[in-house]
């Protein structure tokens, strides 16, 4: 199990909804950073992912290493949170 999960989202992003639904279905808690209500954290999101796109899911493992998954990509998300 990861130590924690943070998702960067926007209000209108359908893929963000899917990441949240999937994590909830798998029993994972997460912290959400909404870039519409918290635009100051946009640079942090870009620095983490290198992309101008949401959702960005940051998975912090037990050993404090981080894995960043951009988009609703179950092939990457499932192993990242396992």
């Amino acid at each position, binding site marked *: 199990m990861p130590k924690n999960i943070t998702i960067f989202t*926007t209000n*209108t*992003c*359908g*893929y*963000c*909804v*899917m990441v949240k*639904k*999937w994590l909830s*279905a798998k029993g994972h808690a997460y912290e959400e950073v909404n*870039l*519409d209500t918290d*635009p100051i954290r*946009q640079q942090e999101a*870009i620095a983490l992912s*290198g*992309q*101008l*796109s*949401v*959702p960005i899911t940051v998975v912090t493992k037990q050993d404090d290493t981080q894995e960043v998954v*951009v*988009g*609703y990509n*179950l092939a990457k998300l499932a192993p990242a949170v396992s």
Partner: protein
Amino acid sequence: MNDSTELHDVVMVGAGPAALAAALYTTREDIDTVLYEKGVIGGLAAITDWVDNYPGFPDGLAGLELADKLQKQAERFGADIRLGEVQKITNTGNLKEIETTDGLVRAKTVLIATGSDYKKLGIPGEEEYYARGVHYCATCDGAFYRDKKIVVVGGGNSAVQESIFLTKFASHIDLLVRGDSFRASEILQQELKKHSDKVTVHFNTSTERIIGKEGKVTEVQGHNSKSKKELSFAVDGVFVFIGLLPNTGFLKGSDIDLDDIGMIKTNESLETSMSGVFAAGDVRSGATMQIASATGEGATAALMIRKYLEPHA
């Protein structure tokens, strides 16, 4: 496969408007219904900013909200929506074998409603700057372009609708339209005119190249077919809405016939060339690519599935 493999009355591939409408009808008939969605529940509708042409909503509604309502209505009567991908459909006689990322399931009937995805331009720079300045989802990525200049490519409903949405963020939009007029509906064109302070429309303009520097998009080059002039737009990003491609890659090599552009051929009952396998919505050859038509086709497909299941029960 053995007899203990899950067996359902109908497996639906996709959970966009067509499949969700079909599932509403089948579940109300007590037909055991499972849907597999590899992307967003609600399909392209869910990533569309605003839907103004779906009957029953006089003020329009957000695409995400419509998707949520369609999902809840289907689930209310027992639709089982699973987040996974269908990889192959095989006809084994009366039953179909469906390979999914979660394992094998069997079904008496299948509805393919995988919809479409946005086409790519296929020009230099497009792949290189994907998600770093080149985008296909305004509702996902528009927020990264606050007070920035962008290009939007396309002349249909999606391009105009999403340009209007992007005016919330961008300081200026150059809208590049290959033809000499819009294909978008008149009402959307009128709405776009209200944003003429922010949007400049360039007709007869093809998009030729996306240029960047240090990992960021800096310029889009185009060509005006009337003036024969090369054009350059200094921008931070590009959003592309140039039409749709059917999601039928997983059917390659199957017994399900596709038309010349990869859409699924069906008969008047919406049944494909594989008996017991139906298709509805944007993926079906002849589809009108409207949410209202997709839900209508979904309802029709559900009734055809019910009819098919009767003698096969």
